[in-house]
């Protein structure tokens, strides 16, 4: 049984839309078929908007891609995946970014906007995300880690993984918008759109991404990154909006660490392109990040910024 958390009035209001009947079709099919991705034509590959108003940056980034209506059909159910892994500064998706996205989805005519997570309510409150979510009319749907809340999903083209365990609730939604924060990660140097997908995978499954004998295994870092790529073969967000406003560039993913403040919100459909752009914000190169290089090589997206349309706007 899924557990709906609604302790306070302002959260209870956000749940009044209620549950809808699950759509027909195989689990996650709408998030794994490239046809969906191919349908969303965008004028630029990466939109990066900088400025001191992070809500405006977010709106402008999506506008640059053609506006939220391009991604959210009227009457659709939208799943959002922000990052609330830690409450330390520069480690979680900013409330302003989340607020802007929920607002835009509502204005585009979404029937439901659902924030999916297996992190506890305290994490959402500590990060200041539960209030803006409720105020803008999103439902915060939290699930405990019981196996019944997750569904086995095969990874037919996985190089490391044969299957993953994805939140059942995802399948009730028509659109998936990925809302990571980009930041350092002590395990593999970088986290962005692709790594954020682990937020939909069960914790026990995520744990298998780390080799048991990793301290002596020479391939442990590449193993982790390949698992992330495998996961992304079966989970393809409709849109990625990355908080690159203020983030840690050391001691990731939990911090505390040195804060870097480019004040950017970066958006795009191609996750590999978005990650390739984001890593440059603190001097990394996409070709040196195994996850990005592998994803490019396996056809998940394109990492060569020289071959992509990148539009940078300053507000």
């Amino acid at each position, binding site marked *: 049984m899924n557990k709906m958390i609604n302790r306070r009035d302002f959260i209870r209001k956000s749940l009044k839309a209620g549950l809808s009947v699950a759509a027909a079709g195989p689990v996650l099919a709408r998030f794994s078929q490239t046809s969906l991705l191919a349908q969303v034509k965008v004028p630029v590959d990466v939109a990066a908007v900088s400025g001191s108003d992070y809500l405006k940056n977010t709106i402008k980034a999506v506008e640059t891609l053609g506006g939220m209506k391009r991604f959210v059909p009227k009457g659709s159910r939208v799943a959002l995946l922000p990052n609330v*892994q*830690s*409450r*330390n*500064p520069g480690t979680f998706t900013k409330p302003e970014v989340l607020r802007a996205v929920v607002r835009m989805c509502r204005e585009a005519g979404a029937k439901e906007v659902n924030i999916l997570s297996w992190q506890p309510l305290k994490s959402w409150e500590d990060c200041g995300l539960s209030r803006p979510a409720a105020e803008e009319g999103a439902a915060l749907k939290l699930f405990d880690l019981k196996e019944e809340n997750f569904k086995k999903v095969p990874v037919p083209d996985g190089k490391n993984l044969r299957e993953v365990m994805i939140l059942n609730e995802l399948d009730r939604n028509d659109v998936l918008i990925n809302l990571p924060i980009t930041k350092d*990660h*002590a*395990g593999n*140097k970088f986290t962005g759109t692709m790594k954020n997908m682990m937020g939909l995978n069960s*914790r026990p499954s*995520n*744990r298998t*991404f*780390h080799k048991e004998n*990793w*301290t002596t295994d*020479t*391939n442990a*870092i*590449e193993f*982790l990154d390949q698992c992330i790529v495998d996961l992304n073969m079966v989970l393809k967000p409709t849109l990625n909006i990355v908080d690159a406003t203020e983030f840690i560039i*050391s*001691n*990731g*993913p*939990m*911090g*505390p*660490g*040195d*804060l870097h403040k480019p004040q950017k919100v970066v958006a795009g459909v191609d996750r590999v392109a978005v990650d390739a752009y984001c890593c440059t914000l603190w001097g990394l*190169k996409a070709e*040196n990040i195994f996850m990005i290089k592998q994803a490019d090589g396996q056809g998940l997206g394109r990492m060569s910024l020289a071959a992509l349309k990148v539009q940078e706007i300053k507000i």
Partner: protein
Amino acid sequence: MPALHPADKSAAGPQAEMKSLLPGTDQAPGWSADDGPQEYSGEDLYAYIDGGAEIYQEYGFLRVIVQDYKNQSGQSITAEIFAMKDPEAAYGMYSFKKSASGQVLEWGQESEAQLSDYYLNLWKGRYLATLTGFNEDQTTRQGLVDLGRIIAGKISEKAAKPSLLALLPDPGVKKSGIKYYKGNLGLFNTYAFDPASVFGVQEGVKGDDEKGGMLFVLKYSPSGKSRSQFEDAWKTFAKNVKYGQFRALSNDLFSMKDGLGRTVTVSLFKAYLFIAVGMESPAAESSFRLVKTKIRQW
């Protein structure tokens, strides 16, 4: 019966020991414990910090206690006290977490602390403490220092820093840039050699010179392992397209250029490998000579 020193309460078990290191309410003026502490040990660290746990495990993590503190203005500070397997592990993890630009606080010879914009790290004995505020105002920063001092005072264990640090040239090395490694992941987070495991790190140190160059000293046991690691690295880099201008300078010395055009020089000496990044070969070899002199004097 004399009262037990807080850190002597280990006889009562590791959990009692960890709790005894936490500041009590109002020990730091204005700061009170908010709710009870949480504790994690061994593999449970993954439940607390997910993929961030691996680096702690590489150094040798035992347990952590986490306690939030609040003041009357509603500001909060989170205190994490990590017990590592030995003082070298704790120092290593402290050096990993240090900011490149923080302020070093002189709290005694067998302790070190660094205050950054909104957080403080402290090393003493086999403990590392990290205190995190959620803003950069003066009240919070003073709270970090006050709570940190109390924790340092409660840790009775004393230990010297890892002896390998003595091999770094002094003067000539910036203290803020010093790192101590116990594995490949630590080195990878400083400088990502390709592949990350090419040097098979067992123990190592890094210092930065004033011009931004990095000097690494890696120690191997048994001593013959340094030769096999050197030869493996030689073969690997000589054919790795990410590195250019590979030059064999002698049987025990080679250099190359990395993707940013920086010179990387690698030297073998007894049980050690020396690696310089971002120094031209004459400067690198000069640094290596200084380290060799120190090794001979040991």
